């Protein structure tokens, strides 16, 4: 084939352009570690990478949500255990009031019981990350211990009111799956969320007040009837403790279930990242070899061009 002077240079320019473009691509891949530098590099791989990105983001969000909820469950478990302990202490206190050694100390025990009641209310107002754990979907301290007008049934006038609601606060740790996150107050504390507190107030009234509603003087013993009434309150309180313990156990079971789920999600994430990496990340060894090959080819081309392009018959004339 006849080769014109201009075409020798055009062909050399085209070959140089091609090689330099390839070299630039290899350099970019090495510098960024990304195989896909442009959308058009490999559309099939791009589609897979974009899908993997979406799944990774979703799974990470699920994992993070689960971690957040698990922390709340841990706090919930801690606080229900605390409630259970508080109830146990109250039951022990009432048992002490019935003990023969303490017949003359009901007023003193009543005072300690009052402190326990305050502690119980404080525990029932437990919060975590801005939520009151037993307030339902309300956003204020749900339990308040207040003193109302004294009556024959409630000579102390002590009353615990519930300002929360009995709605379940839900969350969706996994796609499409709604889970109740909060514990309803009536599950823990009985009807209206205050039944348990009513029992403690009743015990307090028995210890601190006489049957006629007057305040019990220090060192005055309980009557046989009052002792009988107090005796009946203890199993009721312990029944509440059992109820709280059941909630604690259920919470622990959920925590364990979510822990398994979290581990599965972490494993899934690792797999997704591996799938993504296969398409999106540059094989650095291969790219380095390609770069070396390209550099060698470029060097050879430049040497060839420097020899061939400078030769002409005119040089011999």
């Amino acid at each position, binding site marked *: *084939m*006849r*080769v*014109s*002077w*201009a*075409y020798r240079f*055009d*062909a050399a320019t*085209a070959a140089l352009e091609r090689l330099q473009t390839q070299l630039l691509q290899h350099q970019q891949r090495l510098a*960024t570690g*990304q195989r*896909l*530098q*442009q*959308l*058009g*590099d*490999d*559309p099939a791989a*791009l*589609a897979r*990478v*974009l*899908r993997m*990105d*979406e799944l990774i*983001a*979703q799974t990470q*969000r699920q994992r*993070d*949500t689960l971690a*957040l*909820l698990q922390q709340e469950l841990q706090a919930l478990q801690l606080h229900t255990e605390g409630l259970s302990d508080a109830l146990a202490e109250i039951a022990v206190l009432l048992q002490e009031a019935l003990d023969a050694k303490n017949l003359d100390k009901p007023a003193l025990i009543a005072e300690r019981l009052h402190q326990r009641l305050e502690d119980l209310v404080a525990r029932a107002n437990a919060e975590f*990350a*801005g*939520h*009151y754990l037993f*307030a*339902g*979907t*309300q*956003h204020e301290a749900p339990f308040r211990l207040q003193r109302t007008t004294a009556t024959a049934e409630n000579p102390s006038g002590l009353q615990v009111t519930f300002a929360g*609601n009995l*709605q379940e*606060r*839900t*969350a*969706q740790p996994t*796609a*499409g799956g*709604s889970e109740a996150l909060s514990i309803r107050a009536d599950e823990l504390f009985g009807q209206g969320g205050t039944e348990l507190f009513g029992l403690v107030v009743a015990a307090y009234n028995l210890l601190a007040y006489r049957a006629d509603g007057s305040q019990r003087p220090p060192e005055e013993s309980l009557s046989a009837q009052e002792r009988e009434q107090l005796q009946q309150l203890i199993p009721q309180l312990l029944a509440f403790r059992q109820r709280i313990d059941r909630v604690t156990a259920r919470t622990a079971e959920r925590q364990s279930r979510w822990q398994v789920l979290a581990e599965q999600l972490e494993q899934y994430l690792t797999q997704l990242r591996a799938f993504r990496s296969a398409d999106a990340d540059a094989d650095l060894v291969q790219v380095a070899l390609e770069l070396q090959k390209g550099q060698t080819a470029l060097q050879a081309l430049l040497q060839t061009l420097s020899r061939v392009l400078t030769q*002409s*018959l*005119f040089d011999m*004339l």
Partner: protein
Amino acid sequence: MSFRVLYITRSALLAQQAALDITSGNIANVNTPGYTRRRPVLVPIVPQPGAQGTGVLLLRIQEFRARYLEQQLRNTTARHAAAESDERVLQRITAILGEPATGDTGVAALLEKFLDALRDAAYNPADLSRRQLLLQRAEAFAQALNRIGQDLEQLRQELLGQAQQQLDALNPLLQRLAELNIRRASSPEGSETAIALADEQARLLDTLARQLPITTTQDERGMITVSLAGHVLVSGGSALRLELRQQLDDASGERSAQVWLIAESGTPIASVPLEQGELGSLLHHYNVTLDGQERTTGFSLVRELNGWVAELVERINAVLAQGYGLEDTGPTPPGRALFQGTTLQTVRLAADVAADARALPLSAAPGQPDDGTIAWRLLDELQQPVLSGGRTARGAYSAIVTQLGTLQAQVQERRQWLQMSQQQLEAQRQALEGVNLDEEALNLIRYQKAFEAAARVASVAASLLDTLIRMGS
């Protein structure tokens, strides 16, 4: 003794000198685009009856023109130029979209950040700071879409401007082709002028072929007829004018641009559909790829993105319309939306929600500030394949990006293939038409030696004449 030797020598000196001129012309134009090599055609002068010996005559200059390749090359050029332009435009588009995105950049990443903030607000809907963060993320997402919409529209207008500039440059070129036709017809065939004019014609046609998918025919006088999509652009000494006109469809609001053929009288003749050439590519991207109102089945990125935005906004707002804000107490939901506007350029935060984060309707019931049911529902919905085509919110965007990637890959592949094809055709053309310096060096020696020999003959003839004169005296 005859004096014919002097006439013969004279013709030889003139012919070899002309051949040397032609060779030096070839060498001088070795790098001139569109120049085709020439060769002197030398013929013996037919002698008078009874005469001995004959002189030489430069009959004509031979041009080397690969006419059979030129149309094929111009077709390939038009397609290659279109592919090159497509590639450039698609690279600009992907740069605007910021794809393939890495790290926290890009629309998809901003959508994910919005979903993360939605999760945080769902978990603690009474927390004002989380609501505020959700609004900020939503606004950042909307602003990214606005920026993309504006940049794509700016690119669209830029393409129209480029098309206009290129068209402006083509009209004088068409006029020049018509003028060349007249001059070519009056130039003697085989003359240097005729060949130089043919070179210029070819060069102008090559330039024209980059912009428009033209076809050409040539008559026996060398006049070129240029046609475009079945319409004659240049014929003889007259040329039509090209004009870029925009058309607005009142029903759809679609604004498209077409190239119109305009007669010398100024009367519009017809609009021509351009599928190849750089101009065809620019108008295609203006009329289809970047046209949000495009109604054909061609891939319109802006229409696809607008459709995605509209569907996404509708879904988000439909879920939030069932929710209550922190201060809402009425029995029915206030029906608030998060976004207003349904296109890339117009989507933004709804004014009432933007003004007060407490108004964000995240709860399923009034007066339950810690209820994030609606927020959870929205988060779930945006991660489920609920959009058209069974896609998730992000999946639908990814599908558009993938479609763009596929288009870019096709264009790259087509451009590379056409570039190779064009190079091969150009090599064939150059093989015939191009100047080879070594060849010209040989010719230079050939004609130089012939010239020197003729001069030597003249010297011998002069010596002979001298002898004759001395004999006579």
